[in-house]
């Protein structure tokens, strides 16, 4: 087991290197660079910079160097100083931006996951143990609706409803009154009020698919012989359900926990854009559009690393939970 983990950790290194390269170079495939984007943005606002000014900016930010030199410098900064570089678009170090936004993003994502599981797993279990019942039909239908409605559309419609019936602006993290006030309980409560909607919308598709997956897995497991064996032992239905099939039905869920991050993240991008949450998603989209390469590269690198680690954790969990995999090496 330890050897397995060690081997997997070792395998991480080439993957992360590859990811860092891809995240740096692929985003620079489209023509132009940050300076041209910047100049374009100024032009949109009516400010015309001269070509000389453009050349000056290009040289000043080091865009005239070959890309691999830029890459190596960036990597060196990350590895030696934990410095992810500088965001041209925001005019500050990438680290500052990440520090501002990563906690909120992770909090929202994890909360959304938590909420979606909290809703979906009991429903999934109930649906599987009471298939074709009224509750099952309702739960399945709601799960499908959660899956079928584009999150951004839902965000718009709910935002409208919140305005129409509560005169509440769902946009952003705070109400106007708290925008520029220091942290207080009232401000915190206000933030929570604003987070309810995004967490629900981000968690909804996840809840929909979790209900489905849980129901399908558990129904498969419930038909297995070992359930009948356990029942023949005289176990109570609840003990039986949770000790055996539920645990096994969780496995496919846990095995995908690593990829939930990118999935939740991509949902988060859209919803955060609509609801203007200061999270990582909109930051990445803007950075990519503006070719703010160190920022884009850093976000992609961090997300990818989290995902790789997530799937590593899933694998370790699976290996730990399933003796057939745990003893894979020994039984052969």
């Amino acid at each position, binding site marked *: 087991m330890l050897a397995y983990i060690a081997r997997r950790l070792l395998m991480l290194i080439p993957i992360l290197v590859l990811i860092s390269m891809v995240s740096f170079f692929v985003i620079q495939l489209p023509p132009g660079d940050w300076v041209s984007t910047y100049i374009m943005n100024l032009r949109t606002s009516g400010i015309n910079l001269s070509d000389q000014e453009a050349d000056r900016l290009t040289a000043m930010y080091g865009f005239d160097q070959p890309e691999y030199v830029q890459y190596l410098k960036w990597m060196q900064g990350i590895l030696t100083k934990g410095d992810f570089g500088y965001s041209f678009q925001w005019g500050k170090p990438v680290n500052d931006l990440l520090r501002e936004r990563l906690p909120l993003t992770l909090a929202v994502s994890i909360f959304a996951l938590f909420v979606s599981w909290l809703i979906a797993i009991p429903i999934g279990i109930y649906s599987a143990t009471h298939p074709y019942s009224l509750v099952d039909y309702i739960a399945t239908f709601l799960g499908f609706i959660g899956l079928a409605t584009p999150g951004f559309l839902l965000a718009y419609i709910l935002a409208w409803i919140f305005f129409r019936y509560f005169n509440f602006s769902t946009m952003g993290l705070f109400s106007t009154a708290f925008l520029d006030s220091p942290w207080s309980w009232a401000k915190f409560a206000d933030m929570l009020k604003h987070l309810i909607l995004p967490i629900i919308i981000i968690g909804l598709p996840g809840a929909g698919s979790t209900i489905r997956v849980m129901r399908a897995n558990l129904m498969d497991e419930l038909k*297995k*012989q*070992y359930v*009948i*064996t*356990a*029942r*023949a*032992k*005289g*176990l*109570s*239905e609840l003990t039986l359900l949770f*000790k*055996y099939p539920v*645990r*096994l039905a969780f496995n496919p869920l846990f095995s995908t926990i690593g990829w939930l991050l990118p999935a939740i993240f991509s949902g988060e991008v859209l919803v955060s854009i609509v609801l203007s949450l200061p999270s990582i998603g909109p930051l990445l989209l803007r950075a990519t559009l503006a070719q703010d390469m160190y920022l884009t590269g850093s976000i992609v690198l961090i997300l990818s690393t989290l995902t790789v680690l997530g799937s590593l954790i899933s694998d370790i969990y699976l290996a730990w*939970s*399933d*003796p*057939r995999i745990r*003893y894979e090496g020994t*039984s052969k």
Partner: protein
Amino acid sequence: MANSQDVLVEVQDLQVHFHLHEGVVRAVDDVSFTIHQGQTLGVIGESGSGKSVSAQSIMGIVPSPPAKQIGGKIFMHLSDNGTGYRVVNLSELPPKGNEFRAIRGKEIGMIFQEPMTSFSPVHTIGDQIMEAILLHIPNVSKKEARERTIEILRRVGIPKAERRVDNYSHQFSGGMRQRAMIAMALSCNPKLLIADEPTTALDVTIEAQILELLKDLQQEFNMAIMYISHDLAVVGGVADEVMVMYLGLVMEHASAEEVFENPLHPYTQALWRSIPKIDGDLSRLKPISGTLPSPFAVHKGCPFFSRCDDRIVGVCDMARPPLVEVKPGHKVRCYLYTEQGKG
């Protein structure tokens, strides 16, 4: 009729129906039998004959829905502290209730056809056996339960049981798994062991070992066995009494000897003929003609009518033949042994 003192389970007029999309399957139709203490009842039948459902009814684990017990009673004679005994109607107990659960696994153990999947793949064998012990035997510590588990594993012939107890099912071979299964079923000294085709999935030498083991254990634990099989030969080897079932009906019920030496029902005879004999020539081998009718079919007469060699048109297809006691202890459901048939 046997002395009521040694009656363990008495099944009276059991009727179980499966309500399916396509119609109703009369899986068990008017079945009555008695299991005596320390004795073995063999139940024989093809797929869909209702033999497993009968056993599951005793155990209270019939999949419901779609199954539904329509009628009948299942009495279990339970001894109270070794002195008296009380009789419980199992079919009246809620199958998921505490009372039934206290019987299930404690008074009745069950082993199944597929040793491959009968154990949870993610729990150790020992854990799963201990669970039954902890559940049913009062005031037993974990350590004692473990020791008892090792003991019983050793008893069923698992070598190095003290180490194997921590193994997972995939680390056991098929035969070993079935031994472990038996160990689990016996872990609480049940009065009745239901063996639902326990050797079907095993090869012949292992099968023989398992059968031998069951016989030994039966003596040792003084328990009754309900042995279910589609294999006449195997049942012949273990049973004291044999019950032949066909499409939910009991066709013949007699002592093992009677069934083998003097099979009365054309179906039993046909089954007997389809098995090669050591001294007989192979030309006498004869499969049963026709195929099993649809389980949804409602048979006005004898369900075996369409495949029967001795059928009497106008009698057998008109009404269901009654189960008649031809001689003491030998019951058969066939018009050949009734007034109508003889006439």
